[in-house]
């Protein structure tokens, strides 16, 4: 082990879980725990991360962990925060919800809205792999434009998902969250730093981590990080931090790569390179990236 690795914080997600090789969820959970340390409580909705880490009687979690349902994670977290407040131990123990994009952007948005509006002191980490992976790659509100999923498949008259990603950070910002950051599991240091800031900030904070899924997106299990980096380097996934509703930091990109570099490596966009009219569609996706460069000053 190199001296550099030795100095890294201990992983509190034990090996031996049932995640796929190259699993983005395992990375996201591990980085989150590296930032949080041992004094935390994790709340996890139904999904891949929950299933792969806790087949009874096993658990990969070396911190207190609770799974209730798919759509109530933020409410459960707010109850834990209230209990710690009532006991007078709030402030020391970090309360961290970790949910996928489906449970965050779609089915769980009501309880997230409520918990952020009420101002509970907790951090919500969204692991965004852009579809319902645990149930077999169905479209979610986070599925990007033209991605082929099992419920938004490309076909003779369709290029796949016809809507852009829901802008969840903006929704959270509208709730007055003091700290919001987008990050990617392809940039562990960035993610750990941002989760730490979120944990240390009093109030409801939000981390939205882009997370390439080898199974759902269709790429080799060795390419998770590479694909994650390409999303950032093509400007399709802007990385920024917001404090009290204002963007305060942005990760600059020197020369954004063409979106084809990102798209061509994934099965979910394969149809764009074979179907008639695919080129036009790729131009539309390039326009999304170009707009990000302008909007976020990348």
């Amino acid at each position: 082990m190199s001296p550099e690795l030795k100095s890294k914080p201990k992983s509190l997600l034990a090996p031996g879980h049932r995640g796929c090789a190259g699993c983005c969820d395992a990375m996201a959970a591990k980085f989150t725990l590296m930032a949080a340390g041992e004094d935390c409580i994790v709340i996890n909705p139904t999904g891949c991360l929950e299933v792969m880490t806790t087949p009874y009687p096993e658990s990969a979690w070396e911190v207190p962990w609770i799974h209730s349902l798919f759509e109530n994670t933020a409410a459960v977290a707010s109850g834990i925060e209230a209990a710690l407040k009532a006991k007078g131990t709030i402030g020391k123990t970090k309360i961290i919800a970790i949910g996928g994009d489906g449970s965050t952007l779609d089915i769980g948005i009501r309880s997230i809205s409520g918990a952020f509006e009420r101002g509970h002191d907790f951090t919500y980490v969204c692991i965004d792999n852009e579809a319902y992976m645990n149930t077999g790659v169905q479209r979610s509100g986070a599925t990007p434009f033209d991605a082929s999923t099992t419920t938004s498949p490309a076909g003779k008259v369709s290029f796949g998902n016809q809507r852009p990603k829901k802008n969840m950070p903006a929704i959270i910002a509208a709730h007055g969250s003091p700290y919001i950051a987008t990050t990617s599991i392809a940039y562990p240091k960035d993610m750990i730093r941002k989760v730490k800031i979120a944990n240390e900030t009093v109030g409801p904070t939000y981390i939205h981590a882009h997370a390439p899924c080898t199974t759902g997106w269709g790429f080799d299990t060795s390419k998770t990080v590479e694909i994650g980096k390409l999303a950032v380097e093509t400007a399709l996934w802007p990385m920024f931090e917001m404090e009290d509703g204002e963007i305060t930091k942005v990760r600059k990109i020197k020369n954004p790569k063409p979106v084809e570099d990102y798209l061509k490596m994934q099965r979910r966009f394969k149809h764009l390179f074979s179907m008639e009219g695919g080129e036009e569609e790729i131009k539309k996706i390039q326009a999304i990236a170009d707009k990000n460069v302008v909007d976020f000053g990348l």
Partner: protein
Amino acid sequence: MTATHDVDMEKMVVVEGSYSVAHAVKVCRPNVISAYPITPQTHIVEDLSQFMADGEIPGCEYLNVESEFSAISALVGASAAGARTYSATTSQGLELMHEVLFNVSGMRLPVVMTVVNRAVSAPINIWNDHQDSISQRDTGWIQLYAEDTQEAADMTAQAFKIAEDKDVLMPAMVCMDGFILSHVYEPVVLLEQDLVDQYLPTFDPEFVLDPKNPMSFGAFADPSTYTEFRYLQEKAMGVALRKIEDAANEFNEIFGRYYGGLIEEYNTEDAEIIIMAMGSIIGTLKDVIDAHSSKGEKIGLVKVRSFRPFPKFEIKKALKDAKMVVVLDKNISIGLNEGALFTETKACLYNTHIDVPVAGYMIGHGGRDIPVSTIEKIIDEAKAAMKTGIDIESQFTDLREELL
């Protein structure tokens, strides 16, 4: 055993039913209350909010959540973190909680909730019946039904004691009839803090979310283990049968009030006809039965306090010598044309040597008044059925034929 009350007139105050329940919750020293307003539960949560605003519930957090779904979900987290937890809801709110109710009991979290019973939509209706809580019958919650406002308050303390018992660890609903009990002003004894402290031990669960001793809550169970989780829940409900009796007896010793444990029997000894029911209708039934008793007629009453766990043994024992049983239900299983208490009473008499006709009446839907004359009509039909047998096994009561 029949209900007994040591009535201390000097201690009695005239308050709204909701207030007596909110006060009972307060003196049970909850740590987290989480609720969403819905008629006719609102007065309970308003009173609790006022207690919070006045600093009268120390060591407690009150969450004004954005839905009933989150109200009960927040208590999943709070209870797992070691807090004594309370909520109140009714009707649509309870139905919205449905998915979480299974989760709470499956995770063995002793949440206590008042259900202010109300009809369910459609058609929308804010008045009382029992369709809301009866529809949650199989969610693994203890369900207790109160006859009057004093019992609803007293039952709240009993519910915490039963639910939090380490051999039970199952959530409990205290069901009280909407408006009829929640909004009525009656003289009651507000639960005394010192007596409640004597009665109800502090909540000190063995399994909590604690970074010093990390545990995983809510793991997934595959076919090789899932069955045993269900079995253990059922076993805990079996233990709860005894604990409900114990909680009622201990309450009687400390507070001097007793309403029965699992059931209350009223005039059942030598009774030819026994009426069964739950909730506030019991008061009306007792009055009617008293009038008949004074004429020498042998009519008795079984008030079912605990619908879950269902007291099969006690019910069989109470009914075994009756000549006719009549069950009143403020609910219906549509497609079966029966109310739940009727169906389950019949079921528990099957495979026994007890051979008594049982007739079911569905009554008081959506808050329709239940006058004494309706009860008299049912008794008349029961008397006839005793001689000639049952014509109609289960039926709606007081149907307005002109609307059909």
